[in-house]
C-alpha cells in the first residue's frame, strides 16, 4: 500500500502501462519536461524519452488526429487535453474520426487511443478551465467514456483505459488531483472492471448518483444527511458509456428515490439520460421523479461565483428533501 494523490496515482498508472507495453505513448502540450500543468505526467519523459512522451505543437485537433495515425501504426497513444475547455478544437477528430473509424473499417481498424481530460470547476480558474463537457462525448457512439473519482480508481482505470482496444475519453476531476488515499500498486486483484459502477456508500432511503468530482460531494452530503436520520446510498458510476445499468437500477429499486448530481449544466446534461433511463426501467419503484442537481444553464461563471454555481451539500440535500415531498 502506498499513499498517493489522485494525480500521482494517474502518473503511476501510466508509468506501469508504459513499462508493460512499449507501444504506449504520451502526447500533449507541456507533458514532457514540465510534466503537464497538473504534473500528471511528471518524470515520464525523463524515464521514457522524447519519442514516447511527446511535447506536441499547440493544437488539439493535431494532437488527437496524429494520435489516431499513430494508433493506425500500432501505437497506443494517451493524449492529454490541457483543460476541459480546450477539447473543442479536437471535436471533429474525436467525433467524426476517433469514434467512427472502427465501424467504418468493418472492424479492421482498432483505435486504442485514450484522451485524458482534466475536468470540472472549483479551483478558482479563469474561463474555459472549469468545464464539464462529458455530455458531448457520452452522446457520441463509438466512444467509451469514464470518470475517476479517487486515487485507487485513477490508478487502475487509466491502465484499463490504455489496455482497451476502443477509444476512451478519460475524465479526471481536477479539483481532486491533490486528494490522497492508499493505493495497492503491487497487485491487480482488487481492480474493478472499467465499466462497472460501484456503491460507495450503502443507504436505504434515497440514491445519490454521481461520477468524478461530485462523488466526494455526495459522500459528504450522505454523511450530513445521516445526522438528520436519512440514509443515503451513493453510487459512483465510474463509467458513463457504457453505463452499468444493473448496479444503478438495483440501487434505485431498493431506495425508490434518486438525485443525480453533476457539475455540467442540467439542461441536456448526462443526468438527463440517467433520469430518462432510470424512469423507464424503474417506473413502478419510483416514489418520486428523479431529480437532478447540476450547473445552471449558463456559461460557467467567473470564479468568485463558482461556489454558487456548483452543486454542493446544501443543494444536494435540498433536492433530497424535495424527493421526499412528492
Amino acid at each position, binding site marked *: 500500500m502506498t499513499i498517493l494523490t489522485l494525480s500521482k496515482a494517474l502518473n503511476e498508472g501510466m508509468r506501469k502501462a508504459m513499462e508493460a507495453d512499449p507501444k504506449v505513448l504520451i502526447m500533449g502540450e507541456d507533458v514532457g519536461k514540465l510534466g503537464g500543468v497538473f504534473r500528471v505526467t511528471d518524470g515520464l519523459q525523463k524515464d521514457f524519452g522524447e519519442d514516447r512522451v511527446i511535447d506536441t505543437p499547440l493544437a488539439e485537433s493535431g494532437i488527437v488526429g*496524429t494520435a489516431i*495515425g499513430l494508433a493506425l501504426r500500432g501505437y497506443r497513444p494517451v493524449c492529454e487535453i490541457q483543460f476541459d475547455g480546450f477539447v473543442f478544437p479536437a471535436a471533429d477528430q474525436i467525433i467524426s474520426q476517433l469514434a467512427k473509424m472502427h465501424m467504418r473499417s468493418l472492424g479492421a481498424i482498432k483505435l486504442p487511443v485514450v484522451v485524458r481530460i482534466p475536468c470540472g470547476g472549483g479551483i478558482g480558474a479563469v474561463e474555459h478551465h472549469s468545464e464539464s463537457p462529458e455530455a458531448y462525448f457520452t452522446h457520441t457512439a463509438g466512444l467509451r467514456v469514464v470518470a475517476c473519482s479517487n486515487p485507487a480508481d485513477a490508478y487502475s482505470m487509466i491502465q484499463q483505459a490504455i489496455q482497451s482496444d476502443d477509444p476512451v475519453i478519460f475524465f479526471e476531476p481536477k479539483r481532486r488531483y491533490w486528494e490522497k488515499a492508499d493505493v495497492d500498486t503491487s497487485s491487480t486483484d482488487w481492480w474493478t472492471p472499467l465499466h462497472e459502477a460501484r456503491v460507495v456508500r450503502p443507504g436505504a432511503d434515497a440514491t445519490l448518483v454521481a461520477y468524478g468530482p461530485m462523488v466526494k460531494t455526495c459522500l459528504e452530503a450522505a454523511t450530513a444527511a445521516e445526522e438528520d436520520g436519512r440514509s443515503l446510498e451513493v453510487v459512483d458510476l465510474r463509467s458513463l458509456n457504457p453505463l452499468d*445499468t444493473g448496479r444503478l437500477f438495483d440501487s434505485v429499486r431498493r431506495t425508490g428515490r434518486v438525485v443525480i448530481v453533476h457539475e455540467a449544466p442540467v439542461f441536456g446534461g448526462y443526468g438527463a439520460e440517467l433520469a430518462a433511463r432510470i424512469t423507464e426501467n424503474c417506473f413502478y419503484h419510483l416514489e418520486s421523479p428523479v431529480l437532478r442537481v447540476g450547473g445552471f444553464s449558463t456559461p460557467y461563471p467567473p470564479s468568485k461565483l463558482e461556489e454558487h454555481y456548483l452543486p454542493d451539500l446544501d443543494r444536494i440535500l435540498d433536492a433530497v428533501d424535495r424527493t421526499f415531498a412528492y
Partner: protein
Amino acid sequence: MTDASRGADAPPELVQLLTPEGERVEHPDYDIDLTPEEVRSLYRDLVLVRRVDLEAVALQRHGELGIWASLLGQEAAQIGSGRALTDADMAFPTYREHGVAWCRGVDPVKLLGLFRGVNHGGWDPAEHNFHLYTIVIGSQNLHAVGYAMGIQRDGTNSAAIVYFGDGASSQGDVNESFVWASVFNAPIVFFCQNNQWAISEPIEKQSRIPLYRRAAGFGFPGIRVDGNDVFACLAVTRKALEDARSGQGPTLIEAFTYRMGAHTTTDDPTRYRVASELEAWKLKDPIERVKSYLFKNELADQAFFDSIDAEAEDLGADLRKRCTEMPDPDPMEIFEHVYALPHSLIEEERKAFAAYLEGFQS
C-alpha cells in the same frame, strides 16, 4: 537532421516531362528512365482506371450507386503518384483516389460499396497499405502524419503519402498537419491534387498564390508538377518519397490538374463554370499524351491499344456485374463493429431490435 532551408528556394517552374502533345522534355532536377514496358503499363493503368470511373458513373445513373466522385482528368496524378509507392509505404486517400486504390491493389468493386451505401469502407487498410476513404475534408492529413511518426519510431525505411484537394488546403487540420510534419520531420509526402475546383469554388477562393508555395512557409519544400503528366507525377513523387524515407522530412507536391467531370454525380457544373474551360483542359488530357508518345516512338501498335481497350471493356462489364450483385447488408449489421470490445448498451439495443423485428414475422 532537419534541413530547414530546403523549403526556402525560389519557386521552381511546373515540372513537366511529357507535353500534352506527347513530346518528352527534360527537367534539370527531375528525370525518369522508363522502359517501353513500363510506359505501356502506365498507359494501361490510366485507361483502366478511367474505365472503372466511367462505369461507376454509369452505375450511379442506373441507380446502382447513391453517388460517385469521378476522377476524370486526374488519372495521371493518381497513377503517377500511386506507382511511385512501394508496398511498405502507406497511402491516405480522400474519396476520389480510385486511381491510387488501383495501384494499391484494391479491388475496384470494394470502392463501390461505400458509394452504393452497403458500408462506409469495405477494405482492410493494412492489407493494401491504403487507408479508408475519408470524407471530412482534410482530417486524413493528421492521421497520415501520425502514421509517419509511427514509421519514424519503428525505424523502418518507408513513408506515408496523403492525398487532399485544393479546397482542403484551407482547413485547419491540413495546416496543422504541415506544422506537425515539419516539427517532427516526419517521413511524409503531401500530395495535393489542385483540380482547380472545390465543388463550385475556384482555386482563387482558397489561395491567392500557387498552393505548392504554402510548404515553404512551414519550412519544407513544395513543388508544382503537371498533374496531367504521368511521367512527371511519378518522378516527382518518387523523389519526395525517397527524401522522406531517408530522413529528409516532408514535401508538398501540388499536382496541377483539372476535374473534368462534375464534383460528384449529384453536382451540376454548368451552374458555375464555362464550357470553354473544359475544352481547354481536354487538350491536356492525361491519357492522350501517353498514347501519342507510345505511337510516335513506336513503342506500341494498334493491337496493343485494342487489347487494352478490350481489357477495359471486360473490366467494366465485370465491375457492373459484381456491383449489382452486391447484397444488401442485414439490418442487424447496424450493431456490428461499433466497438471492438463488448458493450452493454449495444447488446441491449441489438436484442431489443431483434425482438422487434421478430414481432413482424409472427
